[in-house]
Structure formats: C-alpha cells, structure tokens
C-alpha cells in the first residue's frame, strides 16, 4: 500500500510544481483559504492590468517598464520571504516543516518554454490570467482556456515521445 502511495507521488511529481503531500487530514472548509488567496490574487491581476493583452504586447515590444517592474518586484519579495522562512525555520500554521521541491533541469524547459512564450504573446495571457479574464466577462476566453487544457492533454499523450 505504501508503495502505491509512493508511486502516486512520483507520478504527480512528473513536471509538476505542486507535490507537497501533507500528512495531515483537514476538514473540507480548510480548503476555503485557497479560494480566498486566489480571489486576492485575481483582484491584483486585474487591478495592475497584468492580465491585459495590451500590457503583454507592451512588454514584448519593450515599450513599458510596468510588467518588468511587477515581475521583478514579485520575485524580489518572494525571494526575501523564502529566505526568511528558511533562515528562521518558519513552520506552517499546522506546525509542519515548510518544504520546497528543487527543480531539475530538462530540455523541456527550453522547448516547452519557447512554445509557451509564443502562446503567451498571442493570447496575452499565461494560465492564471486566463481564469481572471473569463471572470472579468471576456467569456470567449473560455475557448482559449479549453484549448490550453487540450494542449496539456496532448502533452500528456505524447510525453514519452518528446525529448526531456
């Protein structure tokens, strides 16, 4: 049985970002906090116009500092935060040790990265903004989202044939 669990974790770890398996069981309402963080995150997305197709076009034409400022200061803030968490061994609110998985290199980061970059500049959105754009009433973007899900599905289908 424990072997099965290990196998499942391994399976989820393939190219995944989120493999933090908590040993703790929580009541369902504990998950609501993720909805709340998502809402706050979505509000920032819209208010800072990060999800705007026009801002993405400016960024890739080097016509505005806005997006570079947003991403740069976000990375800086997150970096300091992670440093503090590690330095002072800060635990989760449930007292668990905070663990962050290291990322291993694969050529997929180059091929996949270029592919995503091409798509990002056409749609003006990375995956997060797609959800927010639909929320702001751009209902047609649900087609873009479905197509992105299809893209992920096709990747899963042909994964073994691609160089990694």
């Amino acid at each position: 049985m424990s072997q099965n669990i290990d196998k499942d974790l391994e399976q989820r770890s393939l190219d995944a970002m989120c493999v933090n398996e908590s040993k703790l069981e929580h009541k369902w309402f504990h998950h609501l906090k993720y909805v709340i963080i998502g809402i706050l995150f979505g509000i920032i997305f819209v208010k800072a116009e990060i999800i705007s197709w026009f801002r993405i076009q400016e960024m890739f034409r080097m016509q505005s500092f806005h997006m570079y400022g947003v991403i740069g200061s976000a990375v800086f803030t997150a970096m300091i935060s992670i440093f503090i968490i590690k330095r002072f061994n800060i635990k989760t609110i449930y007292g668990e040790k905070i663990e962050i998985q290291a990322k291993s290199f694969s050529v997929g980061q180059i091929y996949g990265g270029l592919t995503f970059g091409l798509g990002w500049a056409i749609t003006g959105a990375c995956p997060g903004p797609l959800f927010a754009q639909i929320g702001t009433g751009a209902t047609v973007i649900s087609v873009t989202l479905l197509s992105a899900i299809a893209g992920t599905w096709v990747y899963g289908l042909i994964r073994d044939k691609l160089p990694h």
Partner: protein
Amino acid sequence: MIEFLKEPWAWYVAGPLIGLTVPALLILGNKSFGVSSSLRHICASCLPANIPFFKYEWKKEIWNLLFVFGIFLGGVITVNLLSNPDPIAVNPKLVAELATYGITNYDNLVPTDIMNWETLFSLKGFLMMVVGGFLVGFGTRYAGGCTSGHSIMGLANLQWPSLVATMSFMVGGFIMANLILPFILSL
C-alpha cells in the same frame, strides 16, 4: 480609499503583493505557488483516458483548482466593484501600431475588436484564441511550469532551471510579438 482601489495599481504595489502570495501559500498549507498544474489536474479529473501522466490522485491537489477558481472570482469581483472606468492607457507607439490592424477598443483587458465570439470563427481569431491557447497549455506543461511556477516561485527559490525556462518564455514571446504576430494581426 475606494477611489484609490478603483485606479490602476502601480507595479510597485502589485508586484510585492503578488510576491507575498508565495509565503502565504507556504505558511497556510505548505503549497508551492503555481497555476499551470491546474490544467493537468483538470485533465486528470475529467479525461484521464488511461494516459499515465494523468493517472494520479488529483483530489490531493484540489487546493490548486480552488486557487484558480478564486482567481476567476477575483476577476468577477474586480470588474463589478473595483473597476476602473477609463480605458487602459498604453504606450502611444503601441496604439499607433495596433490602429493599423483595426484595434482601437481599449475598454477591456482583451482586445475585443479581434477577440470575440464572432471572430473566433475567422482564421485570425482561431489562431489567436484556439492555437494560442493550445501553445500555452502544451508549452507550460512541457516546461514544467508557467510564469508563476518558474518565473516567480522558481526564481525566488534560486532554481537555475527556472531561469532557463523564464528566458525561453521571453525569447518565445519576443519572437511572436515582433516577428509573427504582425502577420496574424494583418490577416
């Protein structure tokens, strides 16, 4: 206060707030910030089709789906309560360039002149929404993450593969925006 909230937020306000999402998720639930994995969880929950990549217990990653549902709700709330009444102000050079393609409506976050239900069935709309979306979904998973997972979470955790991925995102974006997109927009 409400007036301030209705204006567009400067990068030095929005950037640090986005950065704080990283420690918030870590401290509240030991979760590494990332969005594109949600697309994989949707595949795993709706259409795993016996593909090994989608055969896992997606319910263990339900937090990620709730997070993106929250992002959707954030869009709904902002547009209804905190919406900026003015059109988005962009670089005049971009305005001039886009006008040559007939893009003049800046009232929405997406260019409604070319992204709407009618244009979806034209070649231009199909390339921009359907093909573009496919590249986003395929590319992020192949790269193992998107702007949030690699460019923010990965870079903040000093992971060099994330730097490689981020540079690849930017190169792809520059090529598309400057060399390919002008052809698509003039279709």
